[in-house]
């Protein structure tokens, strides 16, 4: 292998063709005098086609190309959390140290800090028989997360020696009788899913604190969701809300081909935000990948694989992991760009014919699994989609919707009215409720699913009534239908709208969501009674206690006050009857 004398034959943007080497598909190679990192993506004849993860200007035909024998892999072990990486797992703070604020090229950096000493606490002991995925010991990686050191895939045997103590990630912590030496760091090729024992059906919701998501269109732990929407409709804010508030153990956030400032924002904010579950900074459970729109496209293509491999690794420890990819469309575009340089036969809108299978393979890496060690772990995947012009008939949206089980459809019209989250309640859906309903009955309230159904039904009825209103005005409707419109307005303005930037409103737990929904139905019921008893709709709607109940959601401690406020409202509504 080392005797091969590879040279560049051609350079076209991020795609370089080399001759004189016979690498394997997806092998990492070093390109040019500066040793730029690249990956072999096509072999034909004596030519190897390479996508290069760094800028190629100034590189010339005739410069050397060297094989590494490795496929594109990530380093896995203690030290992943709180980090921010580029698409090929180079830590951005390290890059800053070596090259300043602008990313130059030709610099290598390890994904893990190889020097850092961790306290390894052995939980397995000499004489134990262990196999792939079994847990050998733990390391307190951050304040809240205990890292489980596992037997790497493909290794098994009887433990000869294992020691607790202070180690860096490349030192041996455990030796097997057969001679295998195990370190805290393992490597895994990003394009290959990590193994597990079997997949389970998801039956626990991923609680996000976002009312419209949790209540109407829930995602399961281990499930998949797509958020398509035009620019400015709220994809990123929604993804960030999920990263902040969802009750996953670990969050992997991939900024794939999007804005630099959005990543900075997360970096600034997360260390100061408290995880409602642990009371510690959210950063403790978070890993970020930032390959922004102006960074090399080939590394953008790799970024989602880097992210999902890290997610699977934590899943294998028995954690619930949530992964956000913002935006999968930029990933697809990176594939398109590379494919077109390869002069491949294009499919729809210039995307490669394999687009939908790549999307499917990616989302297939989500799931709730029995881990090799016999534990229970999950990866939930939430992908933003950026359809051109907001029109989801395009290939990436369609390819995504065929696979994911939850569709949160963002709507430019709602965003324009500043109805946030701008998720269209009429066309969004979740296929999970049937498998989650038992959980809600057991853990929140026995009639939770029925309340949800009532709320969605009211929204449907509103949509039908609105069509009539557009023709005749609302005053022409019978009073019971006018009341229905008011109830639906309450659902929209009080329940569905949720301000991500408001300290209190930003998060509602499931119990509170349930109570708010009940309050709306209670308003409907009491108003019906009052109107039947002679009260005027206008009076019923305008009782001050209803405004208090609705504004109350912006005040802390609302969950303790809502019952009282509801009672006050019902009382005032009943009084409107007597006034008449």
């Amino acid at each position, binding site marked *: 292998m080392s005797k091969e004398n590879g040279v560049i*034959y*051609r*350079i*076209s943007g991020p795609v370089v*063709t080399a001759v004189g080497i016979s690498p394997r598909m997806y092998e990492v190679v070093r390109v040019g005098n500066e040793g730029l990192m690249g990956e072999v993506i096509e072999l034909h004849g004596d030519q190897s086609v390479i996508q290069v993860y760094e*800028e*190629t*200007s*100034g*590189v*010339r*035909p*005739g410069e050397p190309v060297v094989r590494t024998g490795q496929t594109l892999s990530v380093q896995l072990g203690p030290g992943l959390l709180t980090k*921010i990486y580029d698409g090929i797992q180079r830590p*951005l*703070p390290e890059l*800053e140290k070596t090259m300043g*604020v*602008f*990313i130059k090229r030709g610099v290598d950096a390890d994904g893990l800090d190889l020097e850092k000493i961790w306290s390894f606490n052995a939980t397995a002991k000499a004489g134990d028989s262990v196999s792939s995925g079994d847990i050998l010991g733990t390391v307190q990686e951050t304040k809240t997360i205990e890292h489980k050191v596992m037997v790497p895939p493909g290794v098994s045997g009887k433990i000869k020696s294992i020691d607790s103590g202070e180690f860096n990630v490349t030192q041996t912590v455990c030796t097997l009788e057969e001679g295998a030496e195990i370190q805290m760091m393992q490597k895994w090729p990003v394009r290959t899913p990590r193994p597990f024992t079997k997949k389970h059906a998801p039956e626990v919701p991923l609680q996000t604190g976002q009312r419209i998501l949790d209540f109407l269109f829930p995602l399961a732990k281990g499930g998949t969701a797509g958020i398509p929407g*035009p*620019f*400015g409709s709220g994809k990123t804010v929604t993804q960030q809300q999920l990263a902040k508030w969802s009750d996953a153990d670990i969050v992997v956030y991939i*900024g794939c*081909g999007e*804005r*630099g*400032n959005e*990543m*900075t*924002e997360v*970096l600034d904010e997360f260390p100061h935000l408290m995880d409602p579950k642990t009371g510690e900074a959210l950063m403790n459970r978070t890993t970020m990948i930032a390959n922004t*729109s*102006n*960074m090399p*496209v080939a590394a953008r293509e790799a970024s989602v694989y880097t992210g999902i491999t890290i997610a699977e690794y934590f899943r294998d420890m028995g954690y619930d992991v949530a992964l956000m990819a913002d935006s999968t469309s930029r990933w697809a*575009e990176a594939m398109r*760009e590379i494919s*077109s340089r390869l002069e491949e036969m*294009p499919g729809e*809108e*210039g995307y490669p014919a394999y687009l939908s299978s790549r999307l499917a393979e990616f989302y297939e890496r989500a799931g709730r699994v029995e881990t090799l060690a016999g534990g229970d772990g999950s990866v939930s995947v939430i992908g933003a989609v950026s359809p*051109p*012009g*907001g*029109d989801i008939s395009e290939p990436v949206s369609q390819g995504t919707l065929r696979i994911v089980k939850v569709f949160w459809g963002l709507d*430019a019209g709602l965003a*324009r*009215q*500043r109805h946030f989250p701008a998720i269209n309640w009429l066309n969004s859906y979740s296929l999970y409720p049937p498998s989650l309903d038992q959980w809600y009955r057991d853990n929140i309230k026995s009639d939770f699913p029925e309340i949800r159904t009532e709320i969605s039904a009211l929204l449907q009825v509103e949509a039908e009534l609105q069509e009539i*209103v*557009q023709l*005749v*005005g*609302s*005053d022409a409707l019978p009073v019971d239908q006018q009341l229905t419109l008011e109830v639906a307005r309450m659902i929209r303005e009080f329940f569905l709208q949720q301000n991500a930037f408001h300290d209190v409103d930003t998060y509602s737990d499931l119990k509170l969501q349930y109570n708010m929904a009940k309050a709306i139905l209670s308003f409907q019921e009491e108003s019906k009674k009052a109107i039947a008893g002679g009260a005027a709709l206008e009076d019923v709607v305008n009782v001050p206690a209803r*405004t208090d109940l*609705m*504004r109350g959601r*912006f005040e802390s401690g609302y969950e303790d006050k809502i019952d009282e406020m509801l009672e006050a409202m019902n009382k005032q509504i009943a009084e409107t009857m007597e006034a008449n």
Partner: protein
Amino acid sequence: MTGKEYRTITDVKGPLVFLNKTEPVAFGEIVELRLTDGTLKNGQVLDTSDDQVIVQVFEGTASIDKQTGIKFLGDVFKLPVSTDMIGRILDGAGRPRDGGPAIVADEMADIIGAAINPYSRQSPSSFIQTGISAIDACTSLVRGQKLPIFSASGLPHNDIALQIARQAKLVGSDDDFVVVFCAMGITAEEYNFFVHDLERTGALENACLFVNLADDPAVERLITPRLALTAAEYLAFEHDYHVLVIYTDMTNYCESLRQIGAAREEVPGRRGYPGYMYTDLAMLYERAGLVKGKKGSITQFPILTMPGDDITHPIPDLSGYITEGQIVISRELHQKGIYPPINVLPSLSRLMNAGIGDGKTREDHKSVSDQLYAAYAQGRELRGLVAIVGEDALNERDLQLLKFADIFENQFLRQSRDEDRSISEGTLDYAWELLSNIDTKYLVRLDQKWIDKYHPTDKKE
């Protein structure tokens, strides 16, 4: 490196020249072409291999023949930069256009511009007062933001851009902006309009212009904004300037990009534009911002005209996906005689939340802005309904909202071209005054505590 001249052109297609049998040529290398009549042209390598090299010619390929001599200059495109650029007018390739001397380089800067490490960025959060109520109240601009103007032909986007350039200031600071202006394919008339205005206000001395006009080579437009941004980066990050980059018209830039794509017979993306246009635009727009440890900043105001007034056209669409919001100019408002005809509903500033509020603008700013939006959006919607069912079918609330939409357009939006409204009195207090045309009980977006403090009639003294 600068030695050999090749005469090995095989094909000429659109703006591209294909040649073979060269020594190894670098990707992105700069090329000099000498025509048989002695004329010099410049180009850049787009594809290079042992057998064939593809060169994009900035000045177009007119008169090039197989006898044309080609020299590879050994390096990628670099711009001589220095603070002497301030007060100068340069052409689309960075050469003096004002009759002045060549720029004496303090440094030769690579025009592609390396990506800012996302970890090294600093979040923009200093409010810039533009003095235009629609922008300051509803789509507030912050220093380091990239906020394009989405306009269309025949609309006064240039007036708005100039008004912003004249009036933009940080409240309570006298740091001045340096303007870097980049013209891409605009008409001489438009260009003169800009220059005269900058001259009139003395801003020209504090500006650096890169000019490619409609009759200048179209392919050159692909480098003009890169030169402008390279200059901007130098001034901001080497010399602590706050730079305001105005570039117009991005639509012409994208047309040139499409032309190159077509000549290369690339598989086109939507509506014939190259599939990599998003990435290409990002490599311009993302050169805005603030970075840790540097005092300067780059704020960008790209102007683009939406073909067919269509915001879903790939040019505004891909831009909107990258920029931090957009200011949308409306033909309808313009036709009603309202200046500035900004439609705030589809407009957005994504960095607004970071730049406003207590200690930055005013504590009630967010609330007021939400309420203005909500009331105006509903009022506009009601206009449609009234056209069908008449005003009689409206209840009291709807009537008030309907009326408010007119008030908002005619009083809040409308201001003159030299009217510079302060954020607190000129814009926010004025907004309260106009909102008081609606009963307080319908103003559900306003916090009670702000009503108590700022409402002109319901205020608790």
